[in-house]
């Protein structure tokens, strides 16, 4: 149980161990990114969606460099911020260089996750650091999209940075990172409330002692104001970069209107390929609003531990967002490492694990049967994404249960805890 912060370990050996292990992990990832393995993933729809694919980014950069509006076609759907980044500061012309850049991004993400862990425990280093870093760097759901150079890896790092800034009580940095994140992916807007709650409370584990939130919620208003300000400024900057407003329907609009039905690991594409056109606007609205309805209940229930609320919402985003890649559920899976106090109360971890194992094997197999061999069809792949959604759903349900269950503690002999 780590409801109480662990005493800071002052001995240097664990710290050195972490540095060595972290460097080894980073080196292993660098080696992996430079092997030819990544070329197998170039056109794989599991690891990059139309909104995050590297090939689309390259096309956008090419059009942009040749003075053609990249948003006039239907293929480039990334934010103008990424466009400006990759045309000016970070040239991505060579594949090895880009691979290194993506690996570096993941290493930063892993270090951020370790920092979040440390600030949750209120220590400067702990024995678990290496495990937390490994949970991020060795998670196949995270490193496969990164090997395929999907920009969803950057979204994950931004998400973790925003949470870390919130843990460290740095309002401006948090809010700015969040508004950049929302520029890249509109659905991340549901993470704004938990991140701000985290900012006005603290990141330590209060799962064992639930209580109404102590701080006044009025502190949120200036934060929301700042967020809106940054967002408006970033919108204006994006418009200046893109030269017109056309980027909005092509990037944010795609999230809401789902123009590209390329199969992915999420729940949306199949539903909308099957849908009659006159129902489309209604169900687009339902699916989009459905993402929002989780924010308030989860934040209310876990108001005493906003980091846990953020974790649950990230899991929900991983299942239900319109254009997910494997890295969205992957972030949730890696974040499980932050909450060891809930492990002993999980009800069915082995079932969740086996569901994930089945889904992780079935998805590439059915994708191959459908798209490569032509022996299967879309239903095969959709069935496997349903298994994947069940796996993620089981993980979230268990996370919710165990997160609430911590508060009750060990049950005396002859007592059972039930859910009503």
């Amino acid at each position, binding site marked *: 149980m780590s409801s109480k912060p662990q005493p800071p370990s002052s001995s240097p050996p664990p710290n050195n161990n972490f540095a060595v292990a972290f460097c080894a992990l980073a080196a292993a990832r660098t080696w992996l990114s430079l092997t030819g393995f990544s070329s197998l993933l170039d056109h794989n729809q599991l690891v990059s969606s139309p909104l995050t694919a590297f090939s689309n980014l390259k096309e956008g950069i090419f059009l942009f460099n040749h003075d053609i509006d990249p948003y006039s076609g239907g293929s480039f759907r990334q934010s103008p911020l990424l466009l400006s980044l990759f045309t000016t500061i970070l040239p991505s012309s060579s594949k090895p260089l880009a691979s290194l850049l993506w690996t570096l991004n993941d290493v930063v993400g892993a270090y951020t996750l370790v920092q979040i862990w440390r600030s949750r425990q209120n220590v400067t280093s702990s024995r678990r650091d290496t495990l937390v870093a490994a949970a991020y760097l060795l998670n196949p759901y995270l490193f496969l999209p990164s090997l395929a150079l999907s920009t969803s890896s950057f979204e994950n790092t931004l998400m973790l940075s925003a949470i870390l800034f919130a843990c460290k009580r740095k309002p401006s940095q948090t809010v700015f990172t969040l508004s950049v994140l929302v520029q890249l992916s509109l659905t991340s807007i549901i993470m704004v409330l938990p991140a701000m709650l985290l900012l006005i409370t603290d990141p330590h584990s209060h799962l064992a002692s639930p209580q109404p939130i102590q701080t006044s919620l009025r502190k949120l208003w200036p934060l929301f104001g700042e967020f809106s300000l940054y967002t408006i400024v970033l919108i204006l900057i994006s418009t200046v970069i893109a030269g017109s407003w056309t980027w909005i329907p092509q990037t944010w609009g795609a999230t809401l209107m789902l123009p590209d039905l390329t199969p992915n690991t999420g729940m949306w594409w199949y539903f909308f390929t099957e849908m009659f056109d006159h129902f489309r606007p209604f169900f687009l609205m339902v699916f989009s609003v459905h993402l929002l309805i989780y924010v308030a209940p989860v934040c209310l229930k876990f108001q005493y531990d906003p980091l846990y609320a953020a974790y649950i919402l990230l899991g929900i985003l991983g299942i239900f967002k319109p254009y997910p890649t494997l890295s969205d559920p992957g972030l949730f899976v890696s974040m499980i490492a932050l909450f060891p106090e809930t492990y002993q109360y999980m009800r069915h971890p*082995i079932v969740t694990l*086996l569901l994930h*194992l*089945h889904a992780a*094997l*079935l998805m590439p*197999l*059915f994708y191959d*049967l459908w798209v*490569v*061999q*032509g*022996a*299967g069809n879309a239903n095969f792949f959709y069935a496997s994404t349903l298994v994947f959604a069940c796996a993620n759903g089981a993980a979230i349900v268990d996370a919710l249960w165990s997160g609430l269950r911590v508060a009750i503690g060990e049950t005396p*002999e002859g007592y*059972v805890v*039930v859910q*009503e």
Partner: protein
Amino acid sequence: MEQERPPSKWKNILDKLRNLGQISPDKTRRTILRRRYYVALISRRLTLIEIILFLIGYLWLLVLPLPRLGQRTYMDENALQPAQVNTYWNWDDVHAADNYLDHVERLRDNNITSAKRAEWLQTELGKHGISASTQNYTFSTSFGIVNGTNTYAILASPRHSGTEAIVISASWISRIGEGNGTVNVRGVSTVLALAGFLKRYSHWGKDIVFVLSDGYLEGMQAWLSSYHGTSQSGLKVDPLELTSGVIWTALNIDYSGHSFSHLGIFFEALNGRLPNQDLMNSADTIARYTAGVPVILYDHLDPEEEPAAYEAPWWLPKAIHDIKEVRSYLYQAKNVARHIGYQYNGRGSGVHGLFRQFRIDAITLYGIPAMGPHGFHAIGRTVESTLRTMNNLLERLHASFFFYLQTGPRQFLKIGLYLPSAILISVALMFRGLGTWVNAGWISANHNSKDGALSKESTWRSRKRPITGTLSVMIAMHAFGAALFALVSSSWFISNIETLAPIAFLTAFVLPLFALVIPSTKSEDVAPMHMILKTANLCLTSTVISIITLMNFSLAAVLAVVLGIPLVISSPSSKMSVRIAKYSAYALLALGWLLFAQQEIVKSVWSWQVLLVWFAPFVCIVYVPLVLQAGIVCLLQP
């Protein structure tokens, strides 16, 4: 009065609504008791459930060939219209084929080099006014260097732009004896004569590609991979000078005997894949009704159609095999066994098998060697009419089945009728795995009492189930499997296989014995490692079997039979001698192939290096570790 009544009515409804959300403690109690009852019901009967699942699964595998289980094949794609055209292949063309046969036989008898032969074939194809070319290839593998020369020609479609193509092929070496060197003389002659014949007609809407590949399988693999622009380590191949459109279907002709009595259909592709069933059904219909040739599966004669050729098995009393159903069962069982034999190791049943990796549906028409009555006339008409049928296609073959179990030439099982057999066995494994996991989590409080049977009042304490040690053992075993594969596929090992295989067996046998020194868990509050290892091993095996069913059903069925019961019964023992004996049995099951199937090792490694068949790496990296882990479960201290 008027005022009182409505409020009381409303109050009732409101009370009811309020009570809806609330659950009385009594109801909760009942829920808990009911849940416990069902959990106890299942966990007490877990062994019985498993035995039932195993029994149904194994019985299901046995009843697959039952004649009443399957259904008749039927044409699904309406565009195909098989056997609906007049054929023009006639005795002139048969004469042309006979002339080619003389030349080809001379080529065979004079031992002419591949390059010279290809040159002659190219010239002959060119004489028909078709653009023809040759292609050299070299495979460097652990077996040394294999090279040869393919010949191919492309008949441009007179009616279309050539965006799609059909392949007619014949390999130089026939499939007789798995490519032991019999030359496919009449197959090659048929293709040469067909090239001249087909050129004369203008109804082709697709390019027709004639491929005369060298060797048995390797030539076609080289040709196909350069046609589709894929690269493969160890393969050096000339780029193709002539190309055509997307190949949709292919027909491979294998006819080496003097004449043939039946046309045999071979269809299994590499890595457990199958061509669309419509292609087989078309060929079957056309051969029967256009050419008048009986069609069989492989070279198995149907006892009902050919009673003369049927030999009753010696072990079956005459009274029983006189029953028609029994004879049909035995015949279909023979077909299923042959199918499993071709499919489980991923090697397929011939040259047609190489096409499916590029999404091309292909079969081989095999003339069963006999002294009559059919010859070039029948095979020419069959191929001509099948080409006309394939020419009708407007999109790739997609309507009919890709997942089927052919029990006869016109009899098959749908996926829903054969898949559950292996799945049920894998479910039984999963149940045992989860049951072991649950058992590992609890310990009886009066565990130390020597009463034997536990009293009813015995209380249960939960205990920890650490997984890191188990996971490291499993990762080590799979890494060990990868190392074993690297060794087995090296040229050094292959060239000295007779001496090195027993040494490899001994090494692989001795290494897992390290498990003997893993100390048993001292504390009673920690689950013993053998339970956790058994859980992980069974769950992983179950997952592997159920996933493989869709890639390669035969492999999954073989795995279910070989791994099912042995993995479930693995358990430690207190006696050292029993532990070693049990482990030895598992090690023999895991690694016995190193001692007893050296010829198979050579074939599997060859298929991996030349045809990219993943059976060899699968056995080393997945199968061997799974069985050895069951052995380690026995070695660990109880």
